[in-house]
């Protein structure tokens, strides 16, 4: 359940790779003394973004922003938006100027690790329950460290309703026990 796959042409990929390496090198030298990592209030796992496809800006920095509502093609073809009213669109959550982050209705920028704040704008009751560990799954210790999950770890943000799953086999009937 990711955010959809992104396919990149070979030549573009090569350029992107070079750019990414350059950026990484720059980032490493710049952020050497900066140790304030993206630690959030709740212990959440990494967002479920298909490996190798983040940061989004690797592709999107080169592309023109198309603000038009449309059926997505090519790289994001698999994303079918089925979430709330039909007026909902990519840039209600994604930020046109910087695809590596999300934003709230107020315009405040949030990272993918804090995406629960974004979901909580509409689903405030769920966010409240999630914070105390009642909405969503918790693992870890009942009286100690708990592992939280992001909303997006269970719900596909573009189509959040749970898909039906196959049940495991039923128990044997008493008459079948030998």
């Amino acid at each position: 359940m990711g955010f959809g796959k992104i396919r990149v042409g070979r030549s573009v990929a090569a350029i992107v790779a070079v750019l990414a390496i350059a950026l990484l090198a720059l980032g490493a030298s710049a952020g050497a003394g900066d140790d304030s990592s993206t630690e959030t209030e709740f212990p959440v796992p990494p967002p479920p973004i298909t490996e190798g496809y983040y940061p989004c800006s690797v592709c999107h920095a080169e592309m023109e922003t198309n603000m038009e509502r449309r059926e997505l093609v090519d790289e994001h073809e698999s994303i079918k938006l089925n979430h709330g009213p039909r007026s909902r669109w990519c840039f209600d959550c994604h930020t046109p100027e910087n695809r590596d982050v999300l934003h709230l209705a107020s315009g405040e920028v949030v990272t993918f690790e804090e995406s629960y704040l974004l979901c909580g704008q509409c689903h405030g009751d769920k966010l409240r329950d999630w914070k105390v560990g009642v909405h969503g799954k918790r693992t870890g210790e009942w009286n100690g460290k708990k592992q939280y999950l992001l909303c997006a770890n269970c719900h596909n943000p573009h189509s959040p309703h749970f898909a039906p799953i196959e049940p495991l086999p039923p128990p044997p009937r008493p008459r079948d026990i030998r």
Partner: protein
Amino acid sequence: MKEQALTIPTEKERRRNRALTRRRFLRSTVVAAAGGVLASCSPSVRESFFQQHLKELTEEDKKRTYARLAEEYGNRYGGKFTVGGEPAKEGVLFAYALDLSRCVGCRRCVYACVKENNQSRDPAIHWITVLQMEKEKGVDLSHADAYYNPKAVPEDGHFYMPVQCQQCRRPQCVEVCPVGATWQEPDGIVVVDYNWCIGCRYCMAACPYGARHFNWSRPEIPNEQINHDTHYLGNRPRYKGVVEKCTFCIQRVRKGKYPACVEICPVGARKFGNLLDPESEVRYVIENKRVFILKEEINTQPKFYYFYGV
């Protein structure tokens, strides 16, 4: 008739006459034979035969018993077993909450429980039964189906209600046990001592939730599927002819971990914690959600709460 026949025999005469009755002969023979058998047994079997009730054992005795069992299980299933006896923690009363508005009836919990708690695979024993019910009828046990098996769940118009040991505050199963093989621990978990259970199944008849299960034959578990990390009152391998039930994964929760069913649930419907801790998840559920207990009218006072998280 001679006069002597009418006199009442003295105590001394009576004892002498009794000396060789059939009953006395048989009794002494059986005792001697049993003694002979026990003497020829391995010390481990002899020890298990004379094992006292767990509550009467000293700490030293318990340790020896646990070690003996670990060795027995190792011989049977292979690998190195640990049989723990972690006691209840002070100030802890375990409770469970299950969100009926989330459960999709996938039975992942059923099989996670089987694996964690070493239930018999053949014949299959499940400590959790998931009931499929019709939304139109509500919580109605007379229309519940435990054997649903569609291609995909949840099915339209249905909801799902997993039932397992409700860990009653007034456990009727404990009331009826004639030998004291099952009791409620200080942290609220109702446990069974498989070495003390005589298999009369009174507790199964008394339980209003169908939560207790009987080992009709020797439980079969493939060696590679056994869980070696066990607790004496929990998931250690059972014997033929004993009763077993959910213990809230006593071997896990007494070490601070969540029960296996909580950790596997793909929709996060299962909540667990300390009822005495105001910060716990179960307390939040009870204080903020619509909660009910199963068969409230029979006053068993379960510590297993069903709720609607919507």
